[in-house]
């Protein structure tokens, strides 16, 4: 099957292309324009923008936390809008089926679920296997687990930590490692209520910084393409910019990704002791070593739910839930907290948060190191992306929003003074080329020959929100899956995963550990291929040798 996408403006920054032209696909891959061959199918892209499929690097779309949030909030479904009609369970609200279809409709073809406790990996993969069209991947959460803390307490070798990390990646079928408030959940078990980078976990005698550094080195040494994904300490607290700055400094030149930095860009100035420190943090990111990247976690106004493995933070926030209900899980390692929240336009703090996110986007110079996220659903549901693209691309639109927000809030940010407007090529870098590089996905995020034929085509509309809300055409693995914002075909994607080399002696050690600690076989927590009921559930991403 040879397909020609004809006459669109092809924006493919990874290959230095921004010109009118064609894109050709054959058997699920992008190919060079063939000589003297007639395509089997031609799609007219005149007046349209042709991009690689977008990649979301941090969106909580599957697993125990997300599903518990669904069960906690049945009323959120009633307000849901009409669903694509051709999918199973198409009117079902916030289901896995809907998530896959809605992402595809916006031209997203790969999404990373960033917080899977290894014990719940099977659950997360079952949900992902029921998420249509998009490819997906998971990050395994470590850093509050007894085995790792035990290795650190025992001053075990770096090789021992690497073997353990490699074992976790394989048993949980993940693409990388995330650390959430390193040591914070372990400290909360011992009744500590606050935890910072140089605080020490009781009993283990290890600081948060030591945990982050150990995992960062292990991930790097194993050749896992995605650097350690860090959710810092002190999320959401006034003055926490110091924590973020210290964490960036702690990277010590090695690659490190800092997640949803909007939630860490707060100063403590102004009458209410809460202000934007985004400009300071953006300057630090601009000056940091090349391997340091961030994503934003943009806040948008409206009801949502915060679902996080940062049990300490969620515990401290539980009585501020909107509506007033919540669930805190004292889990085996990290635990979790589900706290509904309503970001309100008239709320000083929420308005500052909204501005802080946009400041980060606009003040980090290089779109290769600031990634597009709302930390779905924590800052806002992913369905709000089109509005965020529009805000990034238009100063006038931002000015309109700013005029409607509390002026006291805007006064403690720099947003009103920022003139920058993102261009389409910059959007393409931030949502396509750079995410593929960040995860080592050589055949994604671009439109060069050999790439996976994941392509999103948008009507070039001055109303950018409208343009990005409903793609004109989306191809997944070369198959047309969306036309004019409607799902035309439902395919099942794959989960991308890594399997770095390890000393197999760790397998026996882990078996013993599970039997001694839990009295249970470690097999119980593995994700077998047959479990997912799809013909090819996984695709391996190579590690650096």
């Amino acid at each position, binding site marked *: 099957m040879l397909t020609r996408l004809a006459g669109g403006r092809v924006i493919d920054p990874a290959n230095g292309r921004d010109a009118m032209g064609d894109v050709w696909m054959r058997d699920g891959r992008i190919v060079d324009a063939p000589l003297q061959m007639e395509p089997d199918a031609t799609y007219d892209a005149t007046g349209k923008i042709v991009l690689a499929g977008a990649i979301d690097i941090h969106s909580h779309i599957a697993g125990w936390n997300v599903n518990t949030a669904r069960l906690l909030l049945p009323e959120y479904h009633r307000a849901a809008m009409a669903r694509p009609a051709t999918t199973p369970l198409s009117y079902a609200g916030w289901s*896995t089926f809907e998530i896959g279809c809605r992402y595809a409709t916006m031209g997203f073809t790969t999404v990373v679920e960033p917080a899977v406790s290894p014990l719940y990996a099977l659950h997360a993969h079952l949900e992902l296997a029921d998420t249509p069209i998009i490819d997906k991947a998971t990050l395994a959460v470590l850093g509050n687990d007894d085995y790792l803390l035990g290795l650190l307490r025992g001053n075990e070798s770096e090789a021992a930590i690497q073997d353990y990390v490699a074992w976790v990646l394989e048993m949980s079928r993940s693409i990388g490692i995330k650390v959430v408030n390193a040591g914070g959940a372990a400290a909360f078990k011992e009744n500590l209520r606050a935890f910072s980078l140089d605080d020490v976990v009781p009993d283990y005698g290890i600081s948060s910084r030591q945990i982050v550094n150990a995992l960062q080195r292990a991930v790097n040494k194993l050749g896992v393409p995605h650097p350690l994904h860090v959710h810092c300490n002190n999320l959401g607290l006034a003055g926490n910019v110091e924590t973020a700055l210290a964490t960036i400094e702690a990277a010590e030149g090695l690659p490190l990704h800092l997640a949803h930095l909007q939630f860490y860009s707060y100063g403590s100035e102004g009458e209410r002791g809460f202000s934007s420190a985004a400009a300071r943090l953006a300057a630090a990111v601009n000056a940091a070593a090349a391997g340091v990247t961030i994503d934003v976690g943009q806040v948008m106004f409206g009801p949502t739910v915060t679902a996080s493995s940062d049990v300490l933070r969620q515990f401290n926030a539980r009585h501020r839930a909107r509506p007033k209900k919540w669930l805190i899980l004292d889990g085996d390692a990290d635990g979790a907290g589900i706290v509904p929240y309503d970001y309100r336009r008239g709320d000083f703090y929420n308005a500052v948060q909204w501005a802080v996110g946009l400041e980060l986007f606009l003040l980090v110079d290089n779109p290769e190191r600031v990634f597009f996220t709302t930390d779905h659903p924590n800052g806002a549901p992913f369905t709000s992306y089109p509005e965020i693209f529009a805000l990034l691309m238009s100063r006038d639109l931002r000015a309109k929003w700013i005029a409607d927000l509390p002026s006291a809030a805007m006064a403690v940010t720099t947003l009103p003074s920022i003139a920058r407007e993102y261009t389409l090529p910059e959007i393409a870098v931030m949502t396509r080329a750079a995410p593929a590089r960040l995860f080592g996905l050589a055949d994604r995020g671009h439109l060069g020959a050999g790439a996976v034929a994941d392509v999103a085509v948008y009507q070039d509309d001055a109303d950018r929100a409208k343009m990005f809300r409903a793609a004109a055409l989306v191809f997944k693995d070369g198959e047309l899956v969306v036309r004019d914002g409607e799902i035309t075909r439902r395919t099942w994607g794959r989960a991308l995963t890594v399997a770095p080399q390890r000393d197999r002696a760790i397998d026996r050690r882990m078996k013993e550990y599970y039997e001694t600690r839990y009295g249970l076989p470690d097999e*119980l927590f593995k994700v077998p291929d047959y479990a997912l009921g799809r013909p090819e559930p996984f695709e391996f991403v190579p590690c650096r040798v």
Partner: protein
Amino acid sequence: MERAWIAGEPVALDAAIGEAAKLIAASMQPLIAGLGTDVAGVRAAISLAQRVGGVIDHMHAESLLRNLDVVRSSGVMLTTPTEAEMRADTLLVAGPVPQTGLFQQLVSGSSGRSAGGKARRIFWLCPGRDAATAAAGRNDVKVVGGALRDLPALLAALRARLAGRAVAKTATSIRSLEQLSRDLKASRFGVATWAVAHIDPLAIEMLCGLVDDLNATTRFSTLPLLPADNAVGALHACGWMTGLPMRTGFGRGHAHHDPWLFDSRRLIGGDETDCVIWISAYHAEAPSWPGAPPTVALTADGAAFRVPPRVHITVGVPAIDHAAIHYLPSTGTLAAAAASQPSTRIAVADAISRIAAALPDDGARRC
């Protein structure tokens, strides 16, 4: 070998599948009940319900939703079986509790293994008739209160005392309330537990509030004892596939959750369903309601029906006859289990897929 019957007469599996499809295709309001099956079986059942505009319920939905109702209307601290087993130094039991595996584990566990090896202290509120067995092999269980009906008042008084508020006289003396309050506050990691089948939502909510209050100064959490037959696995699969728990109907063309409207027993009693698909793969259990409409039963071997169902197919038991994924009470997670005695008995998921494949291809039927 699977065995199949139509109206009590043995038939080939294909014939039973065909008859089941005919019944479902002719039904105005099919009901999928029981739902005692692994995750694959639940997924197949939900897909079928969606396709034919049916209702999906579970045999333990009543007690499961009773607990969920508290979760979705207030605040809840929750822990996992492994975490409780590992770290709890205090166990607060409320109401009668069946001596199930997990509960036995919690009670007989010498202590939280990381809690310094001291014996786990156990307080039992209103054990009712289980008082005699409350000791569960331990002679140091502290029992407070007696009959289950006293539990709500006891919890309310305890919570008030804990908060330093005055309380009216209850069946329990102020002195023992205060002692209990001090004991609970002195825990390092306490876990409250109850059997969701036995205590009412207001008592559960009061317990959850009590636990939240205790967290003002120490660490305390809850571990409800949940029903069997993969009820929790079914709840999760319903959650991700529909966004909603069981007791959800698809007759309107979209998922609609209503715990009263879609209660199997009420639907059958009110003559609101004309075809029941009853699933019980873990136990050879027949539905308990009398005089059901035409029924397609998928059960483990040996189910005894008062009246033979219209179609009956013996299915494999998950994790015995075939590999399965289901909720594991000992870990609190979904886990994969290999077949312990592999057989050719058909799995629920396969039986439903074959029935679905035999339905006339009219897409999703709409009234």
